[in-house]
């Protein structure tokens, strides 16, 4: 009997242990985190000293990072703000990394081994200019190494030990544009060369010790210059004139400035087209790049130019690197088919290659964009070279001895858009044998788990359990699972590469560099815009693979021609692509699919014409049926106008085909520009599922949520309050929130927050919208909630009406009916500023919702929606308490355990994507920024499944024990009965 009681209670205990938040040992079970740095702009090697070899890089995501040269791992990393772009980096004193950022106004020194900031200097100057950083090795002022910085229109000398500005010289007065700051090796003189306007060439000779201006010469340059100015040696510059056909060599020496002009056509016989000078610093040479080939031209001591070589497939050239005894080498990279050839040449002798290697790359990396070289001493005392190359897809590779030592997929640091795709269904008859084989292992594992739950496990066993959990191969399988946790995350990056990541462990399943989003003659600056689910097979196209649609455009302005590309999400192959004749301003997903399960999309161009995709007659047929019921809106934020549109008829004109439609405007809202400016517009997610329309409130009353897919939430602010916080006084700043029906243009709700300030982040779900802004009067951030309820259905409370069918619940809702809505709203203080807000979404919408707030600390906070209930009151009644209403507080609580990202940071957080899993209780959350983070969330805990570490063996054992106990007691009682009867 005692055993039974014990087992029963044990069973109870094991089921009642549910997780409120994450325990320490659950980290990494269902979440993963990946760190990236972005496309490398500049790299400095640090390999001289013994110890760890590293490379310090600055990137386009404003990251400064120190990478392990052996494995490519990050030693340390700092993400500077989005408005603090890094211009130059260098290493000073062999122990400090110097960064110059924010257009040459902030100079920082970071400790090389651990990345601590040592000092920071703000350079002030009157105007913007090119920023240059020069760290001379030998220049000393009072035993202090000096860093020479040109920034903000002035030359600064900064102490490298403590960052103090030693001297400063402004060049602002003469509207001088600096090109180079030169320090000849071993001298105390600095030359500052540049132009005034485009024709006057100036050389300033300065004393590096005290900033004294020694000499100033200028000479007029007829014809002007254009493009880059290449520094060939310490006193020779080469540039192109403004027509681009003549090379100008400038020699300045001891106060004399000599110009020498050479026609390119004299050097090379054939015509070049547009030529540009490469900015790479090569010793005694420069490189001239045309669209098809690259020409290397040497400048002789007399200032003569002579063509050294002409190479066809060169894509990148490194700077010259000086290694032993003043010898200088540089690398150039050529492309042949899928191979790249890395050649390291000695500066002085062209024909001797120090190194020539060919490396096979996978074809999804595109061209080499940048190359940086570093030398080392081989075991046989000869010089070896390693090269760091930056590819078109923003990945970073280290090449050494003809091999790829490591590779970083840093394109993933710049995710533009993300969507998901289902994995293939598991094929029958695969795993039975496997399971039998591992039965013993399985049992052993479960016994370990029991020990763990009963807290009997020894420390080693705990480690074993942890390892077992982490490597459970179940979660990284390439097939669909019952709970819908395993999916493919399809992400589009800035480089035009599409990646598929597995949600189980975050590995890259496939990647594809879209050809249509690569630079070409017709499309010179293509950018990806969005990803859409093009085909989600579920009904009659089960055998088809799902695919996504990538929409891009050729230039950044909205009237540039668009680009479409279709990608199969199972294979990662491009199914097709098209460059469009029209532009893409807006993409509207229509809720219809054709017989191939292709989703109908409507693309709106800059001339407000609608184009239907896919272009097949069937799609037009489906479309024509719903022709008059398609409405959309457009927001012209600069003009402060929101317009509603409908379709009219087929296009007439140059692009007319049956898939193009003219549109007409049916409503407009004109915000007065002097008092309101649109800063945020938010709509509901199209695929959101709402479980119930009715909300039962405390006193057994029912309110009906106003659920419309066509609601648009718009926030306008006072024009003065569009700047940063502090740009407007509370009296002259306000914020107006609007709820607009986007079919009829009706304003359902309009509310002014006086003394409030942007930026505004908002999220819209079901019948509520939550938005975050700054309250200038209270000096705090605030979050407001608006809930909107339908009054026209409010009289459906009578049970008899429902029974007799006299209710209007099933009648269709029309936007043209007069609206009877009521809104409830409430504001709460919130501690953090916010980078993004999202809301969890689940499969059926039953589970309660959590707001996911990307905080300024790059973490994600999960906040229960119940805290943002407009009906919260100070003293809730008993009934309201039973409903789960939280008493009113003035600020929203931040519970440390409710950070979804626990101890991790998603540096540079930009967006949060939530996707429902098949299991109702669970939502998948993908957070992207410079880093990527993925986890599963269960806002109301996993009420519909056992936790992953549930001990099935314990349950089994209990059942077996119970059955045995039943049999034993039965036999015993039988025996006893028999005994009694014989008595």
């Amino acid at each position: 009997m005692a055993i039974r009681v014990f087992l029963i209670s044990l069973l109870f205990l094991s089921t009642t242990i549910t997780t409120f938040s994450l325990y320490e040992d659950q980290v990494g079970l269902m979440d993963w985190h990946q760190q990236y740095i972005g496309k490398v702009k500049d790299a400095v090697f640090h390999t001289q000293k013994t110890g760890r070899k590293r490379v310090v890089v600055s990137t386009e995501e404003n990251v400064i990072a120190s990478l392990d040269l052996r494995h490519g791992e990050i030693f340390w990393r700092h993400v500077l703000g989005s408005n603090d772009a890094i211009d130059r980096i260098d290493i000073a004193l062999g122990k400090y990394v110097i960064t110059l950022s924010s257009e040459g106004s902030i100079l920082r020194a970071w400790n090389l081994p651990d990345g601590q900031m040592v000092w920071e200097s703000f350079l002030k100057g009157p105007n913007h200019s090119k920023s240059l950083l020069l760290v001379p090795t030998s220049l000393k002022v009072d035993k202090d190494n000096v860093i020479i910085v040109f920034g903000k229109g002035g030359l600064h000398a900064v102490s490298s030990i403590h960052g103090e500005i030693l001297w400063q010289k402004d060049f602002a007065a003469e509207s001088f544009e600096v090109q180079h700051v030169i320090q000849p090796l071993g001298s105390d003189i600095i030359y500052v060369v540049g132009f005034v306007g485009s024709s006057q060439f100036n050389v300033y000779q300065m004393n590096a010790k005290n900033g004294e201006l020694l000499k100033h010469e200028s000479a007029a340059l007829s014809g002007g210059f254009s493009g880059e100015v290449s520094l060939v040696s310490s006193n020779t510059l080469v540039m192109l004139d403004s027509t681009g056909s003549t090379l100008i060599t400038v020699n300045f020496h001891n106060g004399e400035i000599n110009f020498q002009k050479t026609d390119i056509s004299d050097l090379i016989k054939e015509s070049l087209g547009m030529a540009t000078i490469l900015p790479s610093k090569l010793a005694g040479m420069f490189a001239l790049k045309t669209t098809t080939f690259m020409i290397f031209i040497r400048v002789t001591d007399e200032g003569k130019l002579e063509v050294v070589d002409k190479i066809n497939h060169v894509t990148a050239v490194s700077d010259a690197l000086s290694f032993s005894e003043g010898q200088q080498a540089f690398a150039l990279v050529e492309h042949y088919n899928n191979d790249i050839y890395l050649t390291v040449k000695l500066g002085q002798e062209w024909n001797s290659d120090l190194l020539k290697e060919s490396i096979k790359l996978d074809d999804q990396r595109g061209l080499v964009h940048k190359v940086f070289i570093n030398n080392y001493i081989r075991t046989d005392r000869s010089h070896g070279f390693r090269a760091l190359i930056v590819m078109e897809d923003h990945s970073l590779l280290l090449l050494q001895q003809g091999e790829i030592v490591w590779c970083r997929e840093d394109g993933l640091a710049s995710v533009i858009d993300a969507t998901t795709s289902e994995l293939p269904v598991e094929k029958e008859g695969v795993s039975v044998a496997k399971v039998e084989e591992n039965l013993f292992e399985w049992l052993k594992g479960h016994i370990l788990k029991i020990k763990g739950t009963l807290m009997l496990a020894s420390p080693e066993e705990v480690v074993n359990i942890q390892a077992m959990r982490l490597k459970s191969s179940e979660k990284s399988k390439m097939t669909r699972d019952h709970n819908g946790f395993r999916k493919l995350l399809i992400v589009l990056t800035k480089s035009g590469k599409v990646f598929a990541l597995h949600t189980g462990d975050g590995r890259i399943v496939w990647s594809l560099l879209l050809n249509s989003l690569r630079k070409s003659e017709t499309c010179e600056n293509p950018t990806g815009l969005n990803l859409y689910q093009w085909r989600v097979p579920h009904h009659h196209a089960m055998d088809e693979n799902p695919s996504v649609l990538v929409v891009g455009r050729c230039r950044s302005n909205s009237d540039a021609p668009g680009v479409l590309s279709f990608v199969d999400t199972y294979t990662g192959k491009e199914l097709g692509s098209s460059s469009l004749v029209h532009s893409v301003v807006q993409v509207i997903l229509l809720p219809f699919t054709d017989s191939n399960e292709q989703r109908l999309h409507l693309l709106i161009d800059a001339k407000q014409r609608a184009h239907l995709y896919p272009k097949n007659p069937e799609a037009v047929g489906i479309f024509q049926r719903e022709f008059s019921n398609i409405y959309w809106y457009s927001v012209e934020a600069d003009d402060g106008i929101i317009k509603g549109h409908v379709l009219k008829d087929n296009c007439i004109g140059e692009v007319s085909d049956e898939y193009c439609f003219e549109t007409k405007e049916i409503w407009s809202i004109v915000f007065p520009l002097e008092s309101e400016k649109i800063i945020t517009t938010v709509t509901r997610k199209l695929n959101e599922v709402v479980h119930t329309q009715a909300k039962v409130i405390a006193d057994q009353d029912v309110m009906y949520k106003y659920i419309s897919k066509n609601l648009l939430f718009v926030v306008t602010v006072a024009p003065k309050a569009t700047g940063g916080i502090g740009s407007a006084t509370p009296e002259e700043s306000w914020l107006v929130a609007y709820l607009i029906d986007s079919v009829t243009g009706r304003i359902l709700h309009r509310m002014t927050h006086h003394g409030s300030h942007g930026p505004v982040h908002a999220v819209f779900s079901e019948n509520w919208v939550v938005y975050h802004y700054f309250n200038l009067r209270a000096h705090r951030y605030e979050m407001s909630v608006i809930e909107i309820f339908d009054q026209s259905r409010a009289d459906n409370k009578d049970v008899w009406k429902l029974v007799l069918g006299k209710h209007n619940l099933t009648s269709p809702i029309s936007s043209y009916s007069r609206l009877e809505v009521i809104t409830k709203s409430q504001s709460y203080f919130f501690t953090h500023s916010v980078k993004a807000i999202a809301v969890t979404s689940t499969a059926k919408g039953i589970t309660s919702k959590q707001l996911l707030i990307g905080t300024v600390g790059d973490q994600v906070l999960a906040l229960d929606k119940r805290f943002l209930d407009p009906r919260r009151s100070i003293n809730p009644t008993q009934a309201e308490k039973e409903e789960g209403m939280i008493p009113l507080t003035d600020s929203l609580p931040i519970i440390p355990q409710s950070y979804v990202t626990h101890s991790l940071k998603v540096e540079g957080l930009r967006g949060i994507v939530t996707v429902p899993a098949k299991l109702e209780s669970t939502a998948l959350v993908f957070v992207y920024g410079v880093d990527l983070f993925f986890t599963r969330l269960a806002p109301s805990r996993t009420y519909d499944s056992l936790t992953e570490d549930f001990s099935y063996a314990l349950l089994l054992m209990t059942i077996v024990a119970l059955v045995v106990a039943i049999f034993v007691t039965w036999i015993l009682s039988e025996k006893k009965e028999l005994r009694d009867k014989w008595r």
Partner: protein
Amino acid sequence: MKTRFLSFMFSVFLLTSSFHAFQSDELLVDDGEFGLEGAPPQPHQRSSDPAYIRSSPTPTTTTRRKFSDSDSDSKIQFSLEHAFGDSDFVPAGTFSARLKTWSHGGQQTLTKLRFSRNAFTQAEKENFEKLLIGDEFYRIRLPSNVLSPPGRDYVVSSVKARCLPREGLDEHFVIHMEGVNILAVNYGAPGACPYPRQMKLPAKWSFNSHTVLKNSEQAPRTPVFAEEQLGENGEGEAVKPPERSFWAKYWMYLIPLGLIVMNAITQAMNMPEEQATGQAGAQQGAAVQRGPSPAVRRR
């Protein structure tokens, strides 16, 4: 405390002041006095539509309220224009209102709005019927600034023509104002307009107009609790935990306990009966026991 009271007063003041919108109770009087008022002030597009010539002298159905101070010097007018389907906009009526300048801040708002609608001309009736047949849009527009029409742009609104006809033509305007600017006009039927829309001709070709003027609402202030109040509240919450009955709290322990006790009792009852059977025979004991066992009978 004082500031809170003041702010409360302030918000009350603002709230009350912002609801100057009124719902005009329509008077179906042919009002000759206002018939001329219906003449639109803007001359443009006049020539474009020949129907216009007929429309201005016809007596109009006017929705208005009698105000004693209607001829105030700050009276302004702006015109409503309409279009049938894709046609050009032509004047269809006139709004007149009083422009009130607030003493503080110099902010101007409209009050006492009234509307006079031009009746449909024959051509317009035909156009409207066409719209009804085709389930097309009947569009209206207002200037976005009432002082210097049309302001930056017109604010446009439209409705499916089939939503309007009832006995007459029922229309409902909600004009959203910001000072002297019109942000938006929401135009539609005053009642429901379920989809699919039925084709129905109006019995009377006259408009029943309702107009509402709306200004922005003031957002509720974030509640600010004094420190002690919050403390009290927090403590109060902590002191009284949700009261649950003994049974509700411990049922999960009680049921197994009950089972055990039951089991024990039956066991215990068996014991004396075992002794009893020895003396008084089996029949009685068997009846009390878990069930009459056939084995016992057989014996």
